[in-house]
C-alpha cells in the first residue's frame, strides 16, 4: 500500500475536470443564501459610523453627549473604547484605521460610532456628535508626496531601509534582481525609459461590508460577517478589542465578493465594541459611499520602466522603479509589484525597486494580485513600444524572451514547470491571433503572472453512516470553491460528487485557516481535503482488513471500495465505502480523516491576453470587440469556475484600464464615491470573454492544481493599452485611459 502523495501528479480523473452543479447553487438562485447583511437578531441595534470629512486633520475634541442623550441611542464608541495595541505596529495600524485616535489621515476615516434602536435613529445620532478638527495640509498624489516640502502624512514611519535624504513620506524601499545593468543596457540596440501612472481602483464587490455582533459582559462574543477569512478576523478583532480570541466565535456568512477587500477588518471591531458597550446585538452595514471612502482600494502608483532590446527582439536588461502609495500606512505591496513586474521573462539582467509612499488616502488592501497589475502594465507597455519601434511581432518577442522551466526569475526563484510558453503558443495558433486585424480596429497582447499561495489550512472529513461524506473547511466560498473541494473529495474517495457535502466551519469548530486569498483555496484546501480523504481511506481499509482477517497492508482502495491488493491478499468482494460506513459502529466507531498543515508548493501561474478594439477617433472612446484569455491552471478542477475566474479577472483589469479611478478634489476628498461615477464595466460594455485553459501540472499538488484567481487581472491593463496605442497611433502612459485622455493623446499625435 502506498498512500503517500505521489510526486507525479495524477492525470486520469473521474470527477475532477467535470462541471457538476455547485452545491450552494439552489440557495443562491432562490434568494435563500444568507449574506453579511441578511441576519437579524432579536433585540438588535443598528449601528452607524461617523467619518472624517477632512483628508488630514488633528482631532481636537469629540463631544458625544448629545448623541448619547438621544432617546433610543444605546451606545457610542470612539478610540477611547479600544485599548491601544502595543508591540505590533501592523495591528496597531489596523486598529487606528478602524477608529482614529489623535489624527484622521483620510476623508472617510472613522472617528466615532453609534448603536441605536433603528437605522434612522443611528443616522440621526451620528449627526449630533461634535468633532473639532484642526485641519492639516494633505497630499493625495504619490509624486507630490515625494516632492521636497510635501505635507508630512505621519511622522516617524520610515523603516531602516529608507536611504537618508528621502522624503519623510517614504517609509520603505526594496530592491530585487540580478545582473549588471550597465553592460546589459549596452548590449541593446534600443533602450527606452518611460514613466507610467495608475489611479487607485476599488475592488468593487457588490456586497457592502456587513456584520452582526454580540458580546456579553463576560467577554464572550459572536460575530457573523462577510469575510475572506473569519479566522484572521477573530485574531484581529480580539487584538483590537483587547479580548481573548477563544471568547469570540466568528461565523462567515455567504460572501458577496471580496477580491482581497474582505481580507481585513473595517467595521467588525466597531460593531463588537458597540455590542459590548450596549449589551445587545448590533448590526453594522456600510453604505456604498462608506465602502468607497472607508475601505481599501488598490495602491496608486507612479512607475519608471527602462528596457533594452536587440534588433532581434531579445531583452538585454530591464529596470523598473515602482512608487506605490497605499494611504497613510505601511504596505508591502511595492515588494509584490517589484517581484512580479518582470516575472514573465527570462532575463540575464533585471533590477526592480519598490518604494512605499504615504498619502492621505484610504488604507490600501489587497485587490487581486496586489501590486502586480500595475508593475506588469509598465513592463508590458514598454516591451510593446520597443516592438513597435523595432518593427517586431509582439507575440514572437514574448515567445523569444519567455520564462520557462529553469529560468531564474526576476525575484530570484528558479521556476519549476510553468506554462507561459504553452500559453503563448496557444495564443499564436488561436483564431483570435491568426485572424487578420480588421480595418479600423487594432489589437493588443500582454502577459501576466501571479505567485499563488498555499498557507495554513485545516480540514475535517467525516464519513456518514449512510456512506455520504461531509467536509468541514475554513475558507469562505467566494466563487464556487465548495464545488471544487467536493470534486476533489469525490475523486480521492471514489464516491459520487453528489454524496459529498462541504460546509464552511466557524472559528470554534476547526483549526486556523488563512484567508481566502492568494489564489490559495482550490490548491491548499483541496490538498488538505485530499490528505484528509487519504486518512479516512486508510482507516476504512483497516476496517475492511479486520473484517476479512487480513493484513491492512494487503488492502487497496479502488473505485470507492476497499479491495484485496492482488491475488495473494485473499479473495474477497470489494467492500464499498457505504458498506464500511454502515458497519462502523461494530468495527471501531465513527470514521473521519483530518488534515492540519501548511500547504506549500503552490505553483505560479501565467496568462496571455489578446484584445481587439475599435477607437472612436473623434471622442476617444474605446469599444472592446473581442477578448481572449489563455492561462495555465495546472489542472482545472471545475473548468466552469476556472473560466469564470479568467473572465472575471480579465474584466476587472479591463475596468482598471478604461475607466476606473478614484477622483479627488483639491481638498483631498473623493468626488466619485459611488457606482455612478466609479465606472465598473457593465454588461453592455463587453463582448464574450473567451477563456482558454491550459493544463501544465503543478508538481506541488497531487492533481497538478495551480491557483487561478489572481493572474487574470494582470495582463489586461497593458493588453488594452497596447491595443489602444496601436489604434490611435499614440501611447498613453497613464491609467485609466478614459476618453478625455485618449482624445488628448489623439490630438497630440
Amino acid at each position, binding site marked *: 500500500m502506498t498512500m503517500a502523495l505521489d510526486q507525479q501528479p495524477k492525470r486520469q480523473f473521474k470527477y475532477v475536470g467535470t462541471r457538476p452543479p455547485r452545491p450552494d447553487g439552489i440557495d443562491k438562485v432562490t434568494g435563500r443564501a444568507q449574506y453579511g447583511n441578511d441576519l437579524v437578531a432579536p433585540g438588535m441595534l443598528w449601528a452607524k459610523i461617523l467619518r472624517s470629512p477632512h483628508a488630514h486633520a488633528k482631532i481636537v475634541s469629540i463631544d458625544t453627549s448629545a448623541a448619547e442623550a438621544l432617546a433610543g441611542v444605546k451606545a457610542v464608541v470612539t478610540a477611547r473604547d479600544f485599548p491601544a495595541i502595543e508591540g505590533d505596529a501592523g495591528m496597531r495600524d489596523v486598529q487606528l484605521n478602524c477608529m482614529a485616535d489623535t489624527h484622521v489621515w483620510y476623508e472617510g476615516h472613522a472617528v466615532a460610532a453609534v448603536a441605536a434602536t433603528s437605522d434612522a435613529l443611528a443616522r440621526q445620532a451620528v449627526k449630533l456628535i461634535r468633532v473639532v478638527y484642526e485641519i492639516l495640509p494633505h497630499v493625495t498624489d504619490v509624486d507630490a508626496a515625494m516632492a521636497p516640502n510635501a505635507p508630512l502624512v505621519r511622522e516617524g514611519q520610515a523603516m531602516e531601509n529608507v536611504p537618508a535624504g528621502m522624503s519623510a513620506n517614504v517609509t520603505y524601499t*526594496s*530592491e530585487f534582481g540580478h545582473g549588471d545593468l550597465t553592460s546589459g543596457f549596452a548590449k541593446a540596440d534600443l533602450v527606452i525609459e518611460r514613466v507610467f501612472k495608475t489611479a487607485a481602483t476599488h475592488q468593487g464587490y457588490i456586497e457592502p461590508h456587513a456584520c452582526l455582533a454580540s458580546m456579553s459582559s463576560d467577554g464572550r462574543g459572536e460575530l457573523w460577517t462577510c469575510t475572506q477569512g473569519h479566522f484572521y478576523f477573530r485574531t484581529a478583532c480580539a487584538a483590537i478589542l483587547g479580548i481573548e480570541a477563544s471568547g469570540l466565535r466568528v461565523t462567515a456568512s455567504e460572501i458577496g465578493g471580496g*477580491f482581497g477587500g474582505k481580507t481585513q477588518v473595517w467595521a467588525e471591531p466597531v460593531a463588537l465594541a458597540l455590542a459590548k458597550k450596549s449589551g445587545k446585538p448590533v448590526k453594522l452595514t456600510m453604505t456604498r459611499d462608506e465602502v468607497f471612502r472607508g475601505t481599501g482600494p488598490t495602491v496608486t502608483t507612479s512607475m519608471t520602466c527602462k528596457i533594452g532590446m536587440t534588433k532581434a527582439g531579445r531583452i538585454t536588461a530591464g529596470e523598473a522603479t515602482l512608487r506605490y502609495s497605499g494611504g497613510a500606512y505601511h504596505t*508591502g505591496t511595492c515588494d509584490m509589484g517589484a*517581484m512580479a513586474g518582470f516575472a514573465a521573462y527570462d532575463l540575464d539582467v533585471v533590477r526592480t525597486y519598490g518604494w512605499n509612499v504615504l498619502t492621505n488616502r484610504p488604507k490600501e488592501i489587497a485587490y487581486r494580485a*496586489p501590486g502586480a497589475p500595475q508593475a506588469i502594465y509598465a513592463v508590458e507597455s514598454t516591451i510593446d513600444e520597443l516592438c513597435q519601434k523595432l518593427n517586431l511581432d509582439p507575440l514572437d518577442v514574448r515567445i523569444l524572451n519567455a520564462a520557462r522551466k529553469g529560468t531564474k526569475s526576476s525575484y530570484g*526563484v528558479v521556476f519549476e514547470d510553468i506554462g507561459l510558453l504553452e500559453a503563448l503558443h496557444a495564443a499564436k495558433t488561436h483564431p483570435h491571433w491568426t485572424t487578420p486585424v480588421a480595418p479600423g480596429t487594432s489589437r493588443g497582447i500582454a502577459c501576466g503572472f501571479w505567485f499563488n499561495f498555499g498557507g495554513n489550512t485545516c480540514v475535517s472529513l467525516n464519513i456518514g453512516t449512510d456512506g455520504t461524506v461531509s467536509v468541514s473547511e475554513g475558507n469562505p466560498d467566494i466563487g464556487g470553491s465548495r464545488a471544487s473541494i467536493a470534486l476533489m473529495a469525490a475523486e480521492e474517495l471514489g464516491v459520487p460528487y453528489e454524496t459529498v457535502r462541504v460546509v464552511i466551519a466557524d472559528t470554534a469548530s476547526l483549526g486556523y485557516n488563512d484567508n481566502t486569498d492568494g489564489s490559495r483555496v482550490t490548491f491548499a484546501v483541496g490538498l488538505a481535503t485530499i490528505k484528509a480523504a487519504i486518512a479516512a481511506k486508510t482507516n476504512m481499509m483497516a476496517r475492511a482488513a479486520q473484517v476479512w482477517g487480513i493484513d491492512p497492508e494487503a488492502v487497496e482502495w479502488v473505485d470507492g471500495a476497499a479491495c484485496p491488493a492482488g491475488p495473494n491478499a485473499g479473495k474477497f468482494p470489494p467492500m464499498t465505502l457505504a458498506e464500511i460506513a454502515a458497519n462502523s459502529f461494530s468495527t471501531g466507531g465513527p470514521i473521519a480523516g483530518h488534515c492540519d498543515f501548511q500547504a506549500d508548493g503552490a505553483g505560479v501561474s501565467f496568462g496571455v491576453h489578446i484584445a481587439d478594439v475599435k477607437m472612436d477617433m473623434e471622442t476617444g472612446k474605446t469599444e472592446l470587440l473581442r477578448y481572449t484569455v489563455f492561462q495555465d491552471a495546472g489542472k482545472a478542477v471545475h473548468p466552469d469556475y476556472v473560466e469564470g475566474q479568467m473572465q472575471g479577472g480579465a474584466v476587472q483589469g479591463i475596468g482598471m484600464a478604461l475607466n476606473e479611478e478614484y477622483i479627488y478634489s483639491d481638498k483631498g476628498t473623493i468626488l466619485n464615491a459611488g457606482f455612478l461615477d466609479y465606472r465598473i464595466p457593465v454588461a453592455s460594455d463587453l463582448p464574450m470573454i473567451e477563456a482558454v485553459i491550459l493544463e501544465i501540472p503543478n508538481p506541488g499538488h497531487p492533481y497538478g492544481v495551480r491557483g487561478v484567481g489572481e493572474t487574470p487581472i494582470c495582463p489586461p491593463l497593458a493588453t488594452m493599452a497596447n491595443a489602444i496605442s496601436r489604434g490611435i497611433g499614440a501611447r498613453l502612459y497613464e491609467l485609466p485611459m478614459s476618453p478625455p485622455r485618449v482624445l488628448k493623446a489623439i490630438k497630440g499625435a
Partner: protein
Amino acid sequence: MVKVALWGTLRQYADGLAEVEVEAATFKQLLDVLSARYPGLKPQIARGVSVAIDGRVYREAWFTPIKPGSQVVLMPYMVGG
C-alpha cells in the same frame, strides 16, 4: 553549507553580498544564523520573510528542511487578494 540568495534590499546589511553561505538544516536555523551574523537583517525578518528552496516557496514554515546544495532564495512575506 547552503548558499542563500538575498534580495537587493538585504545586501546592504550583509556586507553587500548577493549570496551568503550558511550552515543550516532548516528554514528556522537559516533565519537564526542570518540574524546572528547580520543583525541589520533583523527588522525585515521580524516583518516576515519567506523562503524558496529549489524553486518551491515556503511562506513561513520554520522546520522546512534544507538539504545541502539546495538552491535557497529569501523573499519578503507576501499577501494576496
